């Protein structure tokens, strides 16, 4: 329950009052958001979760405040984005105007759709890589919806914690590989485009 007077909340609010701290939080949220309003939504929801002793309170012995807020903002943005994009999925091929929620500009929705397409492509590659790994698929199925700590995840999966750790490591390895391949592809594509543009401009001059 949201309780700004709880001991952990008071500690967090003290940190938030430190010079420049709130500004960094907003910028961290900006990195995850498409526009300022969304970033501020992330910040508000992150504050709710940090000031809730039963949800994600800040415990200084576990990690630094900024690092904790990074984790919280990531979880908030992950959940809110997943939810919003799920909504975008049911637009049955409509135009951007149909999917634009109130307050969202059409170009932002288009950008978002491009990002969704890229992510879909990367996700498809990732799923293709792990299609024969039943454990990784099961891990993904359970872990994607429930925000569980490793011990809770192990209990939900009925696996020993070591197995959870190993499967997670495999999943991350494949994701890194997919991302790296895509980055290399993009770099090659951009290089080709630049070379082509240079050739074209030379051809026009001659």
């Amino acid at each position: 329950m949201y309780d700004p007077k709880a001991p952990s909340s008071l500690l967090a609010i003290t940190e938030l009052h430190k010079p420049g701290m709130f500004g960094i939080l907003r910028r961290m949220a900006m990195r995850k958001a498409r526009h300022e309003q969304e970033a501020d939504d992330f910040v508000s929801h992150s504050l709710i979760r940090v000031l809730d002793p039963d949800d994600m309170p800040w415990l200084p012995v576990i990690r630094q405040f900024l690092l904790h807020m990074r984790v919280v903002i990531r979880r908030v943005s992950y959940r809110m984005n997943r939810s919003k994009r799920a909504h975008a999925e049911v637009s049955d091929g409509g135009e951007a105007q149909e999917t634009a929620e109130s307050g969202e500009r059409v170009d932002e929705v288009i950008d978002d759709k491009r990002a969704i397409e890229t992510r879909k492509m990367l996700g498809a590659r990732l799923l293709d890589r792990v299609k024969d790994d039943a454990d990784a698929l099961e891990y993904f199925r359970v872990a994607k919806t429930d925000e569980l700590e490793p011990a809770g995840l192990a209990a939900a999966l009925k696996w020993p914690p070591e197995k959870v750790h190993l499967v997670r490591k495999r999943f991350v390895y494949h994701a890194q590989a997919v991302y790296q391949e895509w980055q290399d592809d993009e770099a090659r594509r951009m290089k080709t485009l630049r070379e082509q543009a240079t050739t074209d401009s030379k051809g026009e001059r001659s």
Partner: protein
Amino acid sequence: MNPPPPKSDPALAAWLFAEKLLEEEDDARLAKLTDEELRAELEAEAGSEPKRPWSLEEALAAAAELASKAPVTGTATNTAKVEDAPVVTKELPAAPAPPAEKIAPVVPIRRIRWRTVGILMAASFVLVMGIKAAQPPPPVGHAPPYDPVAEALREKAFAACEAKDWAHCRQWLDEAAARDPYGDGAFEVQQAREAIAAIGDAQRPKASGGDH
């Protein structure tokens, strides 16, 4: 009628999840940094500066307002159970009317004074008896040890009395009494002292009469 819940693309869900895991991997590296290094690192990776001014107090007020409604995020384990469930902000049910002020009924106080007193007395008695029983018994009285010197003095005193040497008789009885006061109460001793006193009384008027 509500629209059916939207179906998310598993590929999209997979990559969003992968992005989250990749960032979590980075947390382990960041956790090893000092406060200054971490701040510098996060500032470097953070997004652009927002243009809209927004203070911490405003953000806290917004968070409080959001928390008072049905939050989108909610508690970690509560809201994400149903995958891709639509975000529905439910109207909170109207607060029930406050209950009418209740008046406590007058309950007669049962006076159980005598029973309480009885119980207390019984408890005190048991306590006293217990303390008494726990104490060691008082030391038993016994005669002072036998003093052969006092006994010899008294034998001598009796002999002196028989010889009508009253002065020595009294002297040795007194010495014996000094050593053994308990023995001075013996019947023979008392008889001897009475005889000395009687002789003394009989002699004193003569002496006093002689003076005049």
